[in-house]
Structures are given as structure tokens and as C-alpha cells.
């Protein structure tokens, strides 16, 4: 559908101007034509009312004396008028006393009405008819009737209409030519502005400026537009500068970080070399002393030397643990999909080999597949299972359980033992390096293991937490690439409905059974 809204501004302007011009010309022409028509009619009326009055006056005497010849003469005097087609003179009884008619045979009196109206003054398409009563001394004596053809009037009017139309067309044409030229004063600056705006948008070139062609509202608009562009250019420059400096800063920080990392690496490398060799000397020479000069030393000296050796070995372990913690932090993650149950079995097997006398009931949920860095997960499980192994050593019937369950769509792995446990109020210190909840006489350890586990789980975007009842055991839970279920979440499973969530012993959350064992 045609809609003026979608026309270009140039066409809109043309349309407005041409429509207005056309309307003006048509109105004006119509007024002229109507005026001309009315004045022509008036002049006819005036002319024939005068003529008819003169003839009527002239006919008084002839009518009184029934002088038909004079009456006919009077009537015939109108013959010279080209447009008069008939003239008829009646007595008071409507008898035609004299007449002439250009259209019919004189005898038929065709154009003379039989009972003419007394005061006729009528126009139709082709004729004008007028009647003039003849009154002598206040007494009506007869009537004069004249019929005038309007052919020449109509012809004149047609010529006038054609002339007006031609003239109107010339005016319209002139308006079109002039307006086409003049509207450029409005459309050209607008088009320039539009093209500049389009180029700026397309090329993101804020250095462009629109040229000012006029000093009117459009000129003001161009100025405002250019000011806007200047602001944009400035802002754009700021953004680019900021981005560049940010990039530079990021680059610097990355470099600094890389240097710091290198330093850390060099540091742990040198720690691993340089801290160990004096320890080795302490241990080695103590041993040499015991072997070579043992017979010269008394019992206390032997005991002291043994303590020296034990302490240096302990420090060796401490260094190893610290290095492992730092390595766990630095190592690049290489995630693979692997069988956790297999890994757990290997770890348990190694522990059993180192400690063949211990009899422990171990439950491992089969086919636990997991996504993560195999090396790091092994370190974490080594620590967790190693702890369970260690802290259940005073138990009469030690039991360790490793498995997983699903709560609200979160997969939670756990390592559970029925050993010494810990007081829950210290549980927040569990994963801090060098924080120990037990004395070294009771359970040996470096206090770095759980910090290492924490770091590994953290690097896998998981969470680790623990629950325990003192002297009844502890359970460590962790997730990998997943969050811990929140307290507000409702439990969406029940034991036995989903085989995936059952552990080997058919339990769900192992902590809930802690108190019963």
C-alpha cells in the first residue's frame, strides 16, 4: 500500500509543493471561470431587459390601435441580434399579434409559447427567455417575449475554460521546475548529513565530519552532529587507549606472574636439593657414628643419636610434603576419564603391602568413573585413604569405606573410617597447612596432607568437607567440577530407588550411619 511515510524526503517535498500548487491553480481557475460565467449571464440579462423595455414602450401606441404592421416592425428590429432566436408580442388575451422565429416556419409560431409567463427571466442549457409586460397607464395591455440562444455565450465560456486550463498547466510546470531546483537547498544538506552518518556507522571512522551547506535548522543539526562525532571520537580514543594500557598492564602482570612462578619453581627446586642434603648428612653421619663408635657410647648417647636421625628423617618428610603441596599448585591439569575404583584398589594394595599385619575391612564401590587429573587425584586419594588407614590403627575392627552417592544431582565421593575421628568444632582447621588435630605421639604426620588434598579439589573446581564423631570415625566428602549441595536443597532420592546412589553396603550418606557403629 502506498504510504507517504516511506517516500524519500525529496519526493515528499515535491508531492507537497505540487499538490498545493495544483490545488491553488484549480481553485483560482474555477473562481475565474465561475466569475466569467456569471458576468456573461448578467450582461445578457441586463441587455435584454433594457431592450425588451424599449420595445415594450415603443409598442404602446401600436397596441392601443392594433397597428400590427408597427408591432411587427418593432419585433423585427431584434432580428439584427444574432443570438435572438424568437420574439413574440401578445395582447392581454395571449393572442400573438406579431412575432419572428429563426428556427421554424413563420406560420407555425413554433418558438412562441401559447401562455407565456408574465415575468419570465429564465436560463436553461441552451436558451435565455425573458418576458416584459406592456402596461399603459397602469393597465396591462400585452406582453413581449424574447428567446435568446446561449450558443455564443457557451462558446466563449469553453474558450475561456481551455485558456485557463492551459495557463494552469504552464503554471504547474513552472512550479515543478522551480521547486525541483529550490528544494535542493533543503534536501542536499540533509542527504550529505545522512551519507556522512552512514559512513561513520559503516566504517566506525569518527574522524569524518559533515559539511555545512546552510545556516538554518539543518545547519544547526550538522553542527550538533559534528559535535557529537567529536565527542565520540574522543571517547573512542579514550577507550582504545584504555584498552591498550590495560593490555599492556595485563602483559606486565602476566610477565610478573611468570617471573614469580619461575622464582617459586626455582625456590622449590633449590629447597628440594639444598635443604635435603644437609639433612642427609645429619642422618648419615649419625648412623656412621652409631655404627663406627657405638661401642664407645652409653645408652643415652645412643638414644640421642637415634632422636637426631628420627628428627632429620621427619624433616625430610616435611620437605617432601611441602614440595608436593607446591607441585600440586603449579602442575598443569590434564583431565582424563578414568576408573576411580581401580585407583583406590591400587592405593589400598600399596598400604596393605607396607603394613601387612593390619586387618582392615575395606569396602570399595566398584566402577566409579571420574573426570580429573589422574596424578593429582591419586595424590588426594593417597592422603585421604592414608589418613583413614592411619587414624583407624587403634580400632579393634577397623573399617574403611570408599564410594559415592548422589544428592540433588550432585555427585559426592566419600572416604569413611571408624577410627579416632575429630572434634567437629575444629573441622574448619582441617584443611589448613600445619594444622594438626592429633599429637604426633598418637598419630604421626606433617599436617600438610589435607592442605594438599584441599588444593587438589579446589583446582578441580570442587569442594571438600568432613564430618566426624570423636572416637567413632570420620568421613571426608568431596566433589569434582561440582558444588556441594546447599542446606536448603531437599533430598531428591531415597535409598534403593536408584542403583547408582547405593554404596556397596547399600547405604546412602555414610555419615548418617556413623553413630550406629
Amino acid at each position: 500500500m502506498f504510504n507517504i511515510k516511506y517516500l524519500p524526503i525529496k519526493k515528499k517535498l515535491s508531492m507537497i509543493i505540487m499538490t498545493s500548487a495544483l490545488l491553488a491553480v484549480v481553485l483560482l481557475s474555477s473562481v475565474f471561470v465561475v466569475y466569467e460565467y456569471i458576468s456573461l449571464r448578467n450582461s445578457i440579462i441586463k441587455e435584454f431587459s433594457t431592450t425588451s423595455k424599449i420595445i415594450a414602450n415603443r409598442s404602446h401606441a401600436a397596441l392601443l390601435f392594433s397597428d400590427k404592421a408597427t408591432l411587427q416592425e418593432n419585433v423585427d428590429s431584434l432580428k439584427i441580434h444574432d443570438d435572438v432566436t424568437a420574439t413574440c408580442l401578445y395582447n392581454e388575451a395571449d393572442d400573438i399579434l406579431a412575432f419572428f422565429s429563426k428556427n421554424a416556419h413563420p406560420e407555425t409560431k413554433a418558438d412562441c409559447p401559447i401562455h407565456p409567463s408574465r415575468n419570465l427571466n429564465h436560463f436553461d442549457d441552451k436558451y435565455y427567455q425573458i418576458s416584459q409586460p406592456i402596461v399603459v397607464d397602469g393597465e396591462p395591455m400585452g406582453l413581449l417575449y424574447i428567446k435568446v440562444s446561449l450558443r455564443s455565450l457557451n462558446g466563449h465560456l469553453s474558450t475561456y475554460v481551455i485558456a485557463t486550463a492551459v495557463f494552469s498547466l504552464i503554471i504547474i510546470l513552472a512550479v515543478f521546475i522551480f521547486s525541483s531546483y529550490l528544494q535542493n537547498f533543503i534536501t542536499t544538506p540533509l542527504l550529505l548529513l545522512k551519507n556522512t552518518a552512514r559512513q561513520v556507522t559503516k566504517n566506525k571512522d569518527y574522524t569524518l565530519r559533515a559539511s555545512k551547506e546552510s545556516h538554518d535548522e539543518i545547519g544547526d543539526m550538522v553542527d550538533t552532529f559534528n559535535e557529537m562525532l567529536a565527542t565520540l571520537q574522543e571517547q573512542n580514543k579514550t577507550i582504545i587507549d584504555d584498552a591498550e594500557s590495560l593490555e599492556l598492564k595485563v602483559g606486565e602482570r602476566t610477565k610478573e606472574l611468570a617471573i614469580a612462578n619461575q622464582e617459586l619453581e626455582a625456590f622449590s627446586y633449590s629447597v628440594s636439593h639444598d635443604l635435603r642434603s644437609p639433612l642427609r648428612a645429619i642422618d648419615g653421619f649419625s648412623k656412621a657414628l652409631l655404627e663406627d663408635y657405638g661401642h664407645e657410647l652409653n645408652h643415652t648417647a645412643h638414644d640421642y643419636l637415634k632422636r637426631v636421625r628420627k628428627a632429620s628423617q621427619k624433616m625430610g618428610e616435611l620437605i617432601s610434603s611441602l614440595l608436593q603441596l607446591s607441585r600440586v599448585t603449579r602442575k598443569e591439569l590434564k583431565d582424563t576419564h578414568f576408573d576411580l575404583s581401580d585407583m583406590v584398589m591400587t592405593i589400598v594394595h600399596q598400604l596393605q603391602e607396607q603394613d601387612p599385619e593390619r586387618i582392615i575391612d575395606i569396602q570399595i564401590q566398584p566402577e566409579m568413573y571420574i573426570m580429573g587429573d589422574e596424578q593429582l587425584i591419586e595424590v588426594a586419594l593417597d592422603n585421604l585413604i592414608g589418613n583413614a588407614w592411619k587414624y583407624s590403627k587403634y580400632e579393634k575392627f577397623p573399617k574403611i569405606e570408599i564410594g559415592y552417592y548422589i544428592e540433588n544431582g550432585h555427585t559426592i565421593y566419600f572416604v569413611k573410617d571408624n577410627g579416632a575421628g575429630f572434634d567437629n568444632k575444629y573441622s574448619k582447621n582441617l584443611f589448613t597447612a600445619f594444622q594438626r588435630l592429633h599429637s604426633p605421639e598418637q598419630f604421626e604426620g606433617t599436617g600438610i596432607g589435607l592442605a594438599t588434598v584441599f588444593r587438589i579439589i579446589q583446582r578441580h573446581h570442587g569442594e571438600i568437607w568432613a564430618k566426624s564423631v570423636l572416637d567413632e570415625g570420620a568421613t571426608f566428602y568431596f566433589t569434582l567440577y561440582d558444588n556441594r549441595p546447599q542446606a536448603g536443597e531437599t533430598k531428591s532420592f531415597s535409598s534403593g530407588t536408584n542403583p547408582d546412589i547405593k554404596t556397596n553396603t547399600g547405604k546412602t550418606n555414610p555419615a548418617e550411619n556413623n553413630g550406629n557403629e
Partner: protein
Amino acid sequence: MNSGTILLVEDNPDDEILALRALKKAQTKNNVVVTRDGQEALDYIFGKGKYNGRNPDETPQVIFLDIKLPKLNGLEVLKNIREDERTSLIPIVLLTSSDEERDMIDGYKLGANSYINKPVDFDEFIEQVKVLGKYWLGFNKTPH
């Protein structure tokens, strides 16, 4: 047991004494030569500098090579030994205090035969030297 020379490259005098003691405890009867940095080790092997005149064809039976050494480090010494045709087949046991995997990988890449992570516990060290000594000095056959 084979009667060839054992070359021990060790800069730390404490470690040197302990290593010699461990070798003795491991019942090795072989002659042990000790060099204290990487350059001295290469000089000994190729009969240069201080060891000018020594026949490089008389290669050590086994080299115990510490990684952390002054002047040239153990890995560079290893590289030099492996690059020379005369010495490329000498069994080399790397010694290190660190348990950095990187060192181990670099060592094996450059052609080390064994790798001992020197433990703090001296008893463990003796065990390791015993096993390796028996292997490289006794059971293992190397071309001459």
C-alpha cells in the same frame, strides 16, 4: 664382581663420604675415583687437564653422577659423555636430592641408565646403592 673403576661425581664432601660409605657397605671392591665438579669429571673421562695422559679408552665401569654440580651440571656432563662415541655406552646412574619429575625426565631423555633419588634416610640410600651396584657392577653386561 667386575673390577672396573667406579667414577663418583659429587661436589658435596658430606655426600661424597656417605656415598663412599654406602658403596663400602654394599660390599663393592671396585676402585672409586671421585671428581668434584662437571668439568673435572669430563677431564677425567677424556684424559684432559689435570688428568692429561689418562687413556680415555679405559672407561669407568659405572658413573655415579650428581645432577647439581658446579661449573657444568650433571645433565651437561651426561650429554657430553653420550655425544662421544668412546664413552656413549658407559652406564650412568644419576643422583639427585630432588624429587622433581622434570629432572628425572631430562635425565632419561639424555640417556641416563638409572636414577637415584637420594633419600634423607641413610639406610634407604645404602639399600639403593646395594641394588644398583650389584646390577651395574655384577649382573649387567656392557660391551667393551
